[in-house]
């Protein structure tokens, strides 16, 4: 009797352990999305191709940009053909939910509130706000008191700068209407430092190598690839690809090509 109970206990424990292991490995759940990609030989990617340099339509009607190269590389890695669906930014998640495509690659900021509805890849770029200045000035910006800081009026950089001003009231703001004028103020010596989003910052220093981008992010805006929640194999494959692209230097090459230079 005791032996029988012991055997039942061991059986239950093994079954629970197997379930946990399957869960941890992402198995136990058929990935129909991945199966369809393999079966039909087509990777369907959703993007809003109105956001250069990440995605846009060129003069000849072709999709171009960092995300397009990334999506193309995913398709090539899996030996399938790439199909791009051009959908307005605010319709991307609904379209993914309705299975109009397999994943979204569209400079998509991570939204933790959508985790119950969608899965997300590793981040492949961070567009958060950063300091830009000459290297000697950059090293002092932990305390920007006395510095003239250029920002685009009304932008998220403006909001961030005014928040910083609460801590450093001696920091002066130089506000201009256009992003391009922010860099110009810096280049012309009308400002000591600037706050720019990750893309604008890298583009500016690519053209003005006497300036540098700060390592620290003032705000965090990681770009991710969004996937259906019930596609664990696809997620695993996407993440494995991103790791390879990073390690092989391909991701940095795309960033250099499209954004100007990779982040230090």
């Amino acid at each position, binding site marked *: 009797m005791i032996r029988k*109970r012991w055997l039942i206990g061991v059986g239950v424990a093994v079954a629970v352990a197997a379930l946990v292991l399957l869960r941890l490995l992402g198995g136990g759940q058929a990935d129909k999305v991945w199966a369809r990609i393999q079966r039909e030989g087509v990777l369907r990617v959703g993007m809003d191709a*109105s*956001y250069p340099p990440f995605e846009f339509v060129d003069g000849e009607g072709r999709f171009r940009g960092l995300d397009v190269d990334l999506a193309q590389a995913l398709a090539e890695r899996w030996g399938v053909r790439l199909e791009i669906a051009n959908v307005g*930014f*605010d319709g991307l998640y609904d379209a993914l939910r309705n299975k109009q495509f397999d994943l979204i690659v569209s400079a998509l900021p991570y939204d933790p509130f959508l985790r119950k509805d969608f899965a997300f890849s590793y981040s492949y770029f961070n567009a958060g706000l950063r300091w830009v200045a000459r290297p000697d000035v950059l090293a002092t910006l932990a305390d920007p008191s006395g510095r003239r800081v250029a920002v685009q*009026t*009304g932008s998220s950089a*403006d*909001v961030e700068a005014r928040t910083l001003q609460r801590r450093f009231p001696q920091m002066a703001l130089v506000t201009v209407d*256009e992003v391009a004028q922010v860099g110009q103020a810096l280049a012309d010596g009308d400002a000591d430092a600037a706050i720019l989003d990750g893309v604008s910052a890298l583009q500016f220093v690519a053209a003005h190598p006497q300036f540098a981008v700060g390592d620290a992010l003032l705000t965090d805006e990681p770009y991710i690839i969004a996937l259906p929640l019930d596609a664990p194999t696809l997620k695993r494959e996407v993440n494995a690809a991103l790791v390879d692209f990073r390690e092989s230097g391909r991701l940095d090459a795309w960033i250099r090509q499209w954004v100007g230079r990779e982040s230090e």
Partner: protein
Amino acid sequence: MTSYAHKNPLGRILAARRVWARILAAALAILAWRGVDRPPAPLVVPGPPQTVLTRNPKLGLHTRLTDEVEPWKIKRSLQMVREMGAPWIVEYFPWAYYEPEKGRFDWAHADLVVDHAVAQGLTVIARLGFVPVWARPKETTFTYLDADGYDDFADYAAAFVEHFRGRVAYVIIWNEPNLAAEWGNRPPDPQAYTALLKTAYARVKAAAPEVTVLAPALAPTLAPPGNPWAMEDLAFLQAMYDAGAAPYFDALAAHTYGWGFPADDPPAPDKVNFRRVELVRALMEANGDGDKAVYITETGWNDHPRWTKAVKPAQRIAYSVEAARMALEDWPWCRALVFWVLRFPRPQLTYQDAFTFVTSDFVAKPVYRAMQEAYAGR
């Protein structure tokens, strides 16, 4: 219930364990309820009555406090409306939230919002809508209400104005019924909407005759005739008049967004811009309704970097300040100009964030400060 536990030793053991598990769970629940690990909640009271100091008595902000659960955030939001020099707010009071069962009302959260608003010296325009599950067929959305439910909605509207009598004097009946999405995913139907308006108007006036009933703001749209998803706003309003709506609203609510155009961009029937509301006004006058006022309950510009209808942040500031001036000086028929939107309880991470005047953590955006500089104070 018959228990067979005594016949089975394992059952006895499990039963005993279940008892202890329940005792443990109850103890944990009591500890959690007593909040042993949490600091005490801050005491938030409306405080002494405030006055909005403004140079633009038409200025307002649409708040989104429906889903804001923390009282201090509700209070802070409304303080910031006052501090911007805006005497008006529009707030949404979803029917499903406040009448979860037919005839059972729970106004606790709505009271919190309204009491704080009144304490800040603000005038509340209440938007009523959001059909509860019990008032609509299964598998329909919260904007679906058929004719059988009009009396239920009218009962809610009447209960609302009765409960908030002396605190809320303006109600909007429904929202943008010229969009299918706002009409239960059915083709817009001005005759059906007019029937709903008539039913609600009678009940509201019977409960609180002094309340101003606003016909709903229509979504500015250029949808062609026969489009199943939307009906052009001017056509919808004319159809409402044709259906006999005029005696059943005291004033008209209006939505008028600037999209990519400056505030002073001239109106045209084939263009959606800020001054499109002048066409709405002209239509009212053409239908003999010129004595009624217009309350613009949503307006504004968006400065999202990647939304197709957005403008640059500096343009948003300039257009918003100018729009408020135009409403004040050029439009005598306009009583309120309410900008969408003060803030969201949490970032939406979409273009909607670029409509806000204040971040979710209460950092005033430059557009807020510009409006404050232009219009707050005496």
